């Protein structure tokens, strides 16, 4: 069948992309509502609408739980990975919107576009996790990137915000070009950009059914193309050496957006990475594994080491987020079920903890984010014991201390890598976590051991923001103690859509 010969009405199933559609719709409604109904001072309904939309999107995503099929001409997958990712991303978006509401009100920059752009970004991220075609992946990536470029610049009165947006944008566009080159080479190698392919490998080729149907010596172009895809996604997850934008962008962006980037961007890019490498390119793992191992090790070491001397808390967390990308990569490298579910669990709990941390930071920072240095947190505990305790909890989780969700995540991901036979990577991971524990402890010591600067102004603590902190704290400790529900959910996400060929011809383990 040649598609171009005759036009056949494509079968349109909207189940798989219903959450994205809803979010885009709500974003448009927000813009329209804001444009139609005056400019009151208190526009709580904008945040309310966004929250409703995100909750609805999560509900729609949950309704697809258990599906395992390709939809819309094999362009997207409605499977466990997508469902789990979409629910997590909706949760991140919800926390961001609530946090953003207090933040914007405080800095007097409340604008409907903030919410709309966050919704667009979440929709893009969701689409990325479901993408079963590289071009969909790319468009999704660009959708949330474009939204984030603008959101990073949202503190329009701040030069730092502008600068971080410009750096993020220029490097982002630069890396997009490489990702696109990867797509082009993939197309050259297999004649399509699909990850899985259709029932007939000749008419509807895809990476997965191309690999299984081709003698291995013809895969060289595909393998090289893979490298460029790694580069593009590596940029988004902030893997060394594609990480340079991270500290600058994180520092200049508004704190809620920084948290959102750390949680959401990483999640979306990792979900794509998991789908690409642990599903489509799984048979070629002997080719890409060494590459990812080098990246993971470099990322873990550089992130942990560079964080030590940071004085700016946002920058410190930026470097720590780099290190975390390395830890999650060990799960991708493991390429087994536990690695995939562990990586997803890790990303979900890391996202909540990091959003919570940035919520506290944004509260402490005050108007125009003036107080973000470590020194500004001296003796914080004696002024805001609850906030400080929450931040301590988040930092403990990031450090991977037991009884927090971060510990469980590390345990599962590292366990998966050991299972796959990469113990030495885990040893590097444990060592770098030990280094990382030091700077988290430095922050805690500053908050507990030192005296508060008597000149520090009192902090107005918004109700929504403290609610976000509370929810994140409860989730962090809750999933640290009762991890099984989330782990179970993540495990159901490891049922990737598999093309019929793959199912009938299982790949021998270790091959």
């Amino acid at each position, binding site marked *: 069948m040649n598609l171009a010969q005759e036009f056949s009405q494509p079968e349109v199933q909207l189940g798989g992309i219903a959450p994205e559609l809803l979010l885009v719709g709500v974003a448009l409604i927000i813009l329209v509502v804001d444009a139609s109904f005056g400019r009151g001072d208190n526009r709580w309904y904008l945040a309310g609408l966004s929250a409703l939309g995100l909750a609805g999107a999560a509900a729609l995503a949950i309704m697809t739980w258990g599906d395992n099929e390709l939809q819309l001409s094999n362009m997207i997958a409605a499977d466990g990975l997508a469902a789990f990712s979409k629910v997590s991303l909706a949760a991140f978006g919800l926390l961001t919107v609530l946090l953003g509401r207090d933040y914007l009100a405080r800095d007097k920059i409340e604008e409907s576009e903030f919410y709309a752009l966050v919704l667009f970004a979440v929709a893009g991220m969701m689409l990325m996790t479901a993408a079963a075609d590289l071009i969909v992946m790319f468009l999704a990536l660009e959708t949330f990137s474009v939204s984030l470029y603008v959101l990073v610049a949202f503190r329009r009165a701040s030069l730092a915000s502008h600068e971080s947006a410009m750096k993020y944008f220029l490097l982002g566009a630069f890396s997009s070009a490489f990702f696109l080159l990867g797509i082009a080479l993939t197309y050259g190698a297999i004649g399509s950009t699909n990850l899985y392919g259709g029932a007939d490998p000749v008419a509807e080729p895809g990476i997965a059914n191309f690999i299984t149907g081709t003698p291995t010596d013809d895969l060289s172009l595909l393998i090289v193309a893979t490298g460029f895809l790694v580069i593009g996604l590596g940029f988004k997850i902030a893997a060394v*050496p594609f990480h340079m934008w991270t500290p600058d962008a994180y520092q200049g962006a508004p704190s809620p957006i920084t948290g959102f980037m750390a949680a959401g961007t990483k999640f979306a890019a990792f979900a794509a990475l998991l789908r690409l490498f642990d599903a489509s390119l799984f048979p070629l793992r002997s080719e890409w594994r060494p590459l990812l191992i080098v990246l993971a090790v470099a990322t873990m070491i550089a992130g942990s080491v560079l964080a*030590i*001397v940071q004085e700016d808390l946002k920058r410190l967390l930026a470097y720590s987020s780099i290190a975390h990308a390395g830890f999650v990569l060990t799960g991708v490298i493991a390429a087994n079920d536990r690695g995939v579910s562990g990586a997803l669990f890790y990303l979900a709990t890391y996202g909540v903890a990091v959003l919570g941390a940035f919520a506290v930071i944004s509260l402490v920072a005050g108007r125009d984010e003036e107080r973000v240095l470590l020194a500004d947190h001296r003796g914080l505990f004696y002024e805001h014991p609850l906030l400080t305790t929450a931040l301590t909890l988040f930092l403990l989780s990031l450090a991977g201390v037991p009884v927090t969700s971060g510990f469980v995540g590390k345990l599962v991901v590292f366990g998966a890598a050991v299972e796959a036979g990469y113990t030495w990577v885990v040893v590097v991971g444990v060592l770098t976590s030990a280094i990382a524990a030091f700077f988290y402890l430095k922050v805690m010591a500053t908050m507990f051991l030192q005296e508060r600067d008597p000149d520090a102004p009192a902090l107005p603590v918004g109700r929504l923001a403290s609610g976000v902190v509370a929810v994140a704290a409860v989730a962090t400790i809750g999933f640290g103690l009762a991890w099984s529900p989330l782990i179970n959910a993540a495990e159901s996400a490891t049922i990737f859509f598999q093309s019929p060929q793959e199912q009938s011809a299982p790949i021998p383990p270790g091959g």
Partner: protein
Amino acid sequence: MREAGLAPFIVGLPLLGAVVLLVFGRRIGRASGLIASGAIGLAFVLGVITFARLLGLPAEEREATQRVFDFITVGDFSTGVSLLVDQLSVVMVLVVTGVGTLIHIYSISYMAGDPRYSRFFGYLNLFAAFMLLLVLGDNLLLLYVGWEGVGLCSYLLIGFWFERPIAATAAKKAFLVNRVGDFAFMIGIFVLFVSLGTLDLLAINANAAAMGAGLSTAAGLLLFLGATGKSAQIPLYVWLPDAMEGPTPVSALIHAATMVTAGVYMVARLSPVFEASGGAALTVVGYVGALTALWAALMASAEYDIKRVLAYSTISQLGYMFLALGVGAYSAAIFHLVTHAFFKALMFLGAGAIMHVLGGEVDMRRMSGLRRAMPIVAYTFAAGVLAISGIIPFAGFFSKDAILASAWIEGNFLLWGIGTVTALLTAFYMARLYIRVFEGRLETPEGTHAHDAPALMAAALIPLGVLSVIGGVINLPGLVTLEHFLEPALGESEVPTGVLTFLLPGLALVAGAAGLFIGRRLYMGEGAEARRARLVAAGGPLVEAARNKFYVDRIYAATIVAPGRALASFCADVLDGRGIEGVVNGTATFIGRSSQSLRHLQTGYVRTYGVTFLFGVVLVFGFLLTRVVLA
């Protein structure tokens, strides 16, 4: 015993106290001390009740796991939060809460007037909660949480007077050295988890034999390396003397009676793992303990800082406990742990009382004849000295004797020999300390006026003094003994028979008495100076060496630091620390320096970032291309 027990409350009360004090401390003010003491005192009462309940049960049923939280468990991750109450943990609970309560009461008086009074008590209570979690946790995870928690509190409390740079440095050093141990401990836990698939202490003990000698040796050694950090054994002991920069009650509670014994508790608790290794791990434990005991005793003999003498003494006594563990005498080790907690806490508190009235003076060359001015402190301290010297019928006699007897019975005469020599040294340096400080003509540094301990301090000193005197009865043969009580948890230990029944304690007693006698000859009465001078002349190099801490720092500097320096010149000042601490600090500094220099790659110029990115592109692309081309 399956009913919902009191154990959660034993942990919960101090934790609640800590939360209240840390959050509302400022508003509570002076009452903080009472609240903290009340919280831990109540925990002690609950501990006693639990203990009594256990005694009321048949021996084999004295073990109960109390689940605090129950969770759905999946696959191999099925660790909930539950507490284990058995003979061993209840003994530890009694020590922690009992000694802890007395030290809390003492601190009310000692810390009065400190600007961060309530915070201090908050930390103390927090420490107690973590320590109790450590001894009560039924799985390695909880134990580890407690382990890290007490480490954190120790760090906070050593650096409590962080305005003094020396205290801040000591806190950092303690933290860093402990990280080395904790790291090994964590890998050890990981090894156990991977090979046994569980973190439950009882399950690990039950299945330890199945691990095989190689794995269990590795696990045992890793765990023990963790213990050497927390319990200040060779080679990681260097942090403890410096930790004396913390307030003295902290030294008494954390760095003598409780936290530093966590390593002993952990090894005793996991004894099947150590035994599964076919003796290799235990042998290491025993010898490291014995060497530490001797080593630290020698250094204590040459030290003039009263708190540091006690710190070295603590290291030495902990060495004894590990010696006991090494010969399989677990209950003897725990017995010594208990009595040591009594008399060492007592001596620290006594030293604190002295410092309190002498304006913080710690150099015992500037003290003399204090017995006349502060009789309560002097007599209780004397009880402690006699106890640690192993003089019958004081507490230390029985526990030290039990350890030495076990070494003999196990046929390990070398360990026995080292232990006996150390006993002699112990008595000697304690006599030296006591005589210098309390005997002779009353002298105090200028501007201070010695007076006896205030009532609250005395209230802590006197019970501890009494316990130091009669503490040995808990293990008197024939009575309900500690060893018998611990047997179900730790296994039976052999008791000397026949002539040994009297010979071994006799020898230990002789060693202690001889040490005291030598101390008296050298430091008291006519001609002591001359005798001392003769000894120094005769043993010249040895005395000189001991005074210089056996050049350990310099040896470390020569063997570890110098090659390192030669290896990489840019590391020169990185490794300019001394000894193990040098290496640890050096590593930390090295990472810090790397961080400091690497950060400048982040120039702020977007085009530099681009070039770095391109560098990565070329690496990735080149890597794959060469693979494909070569394939």
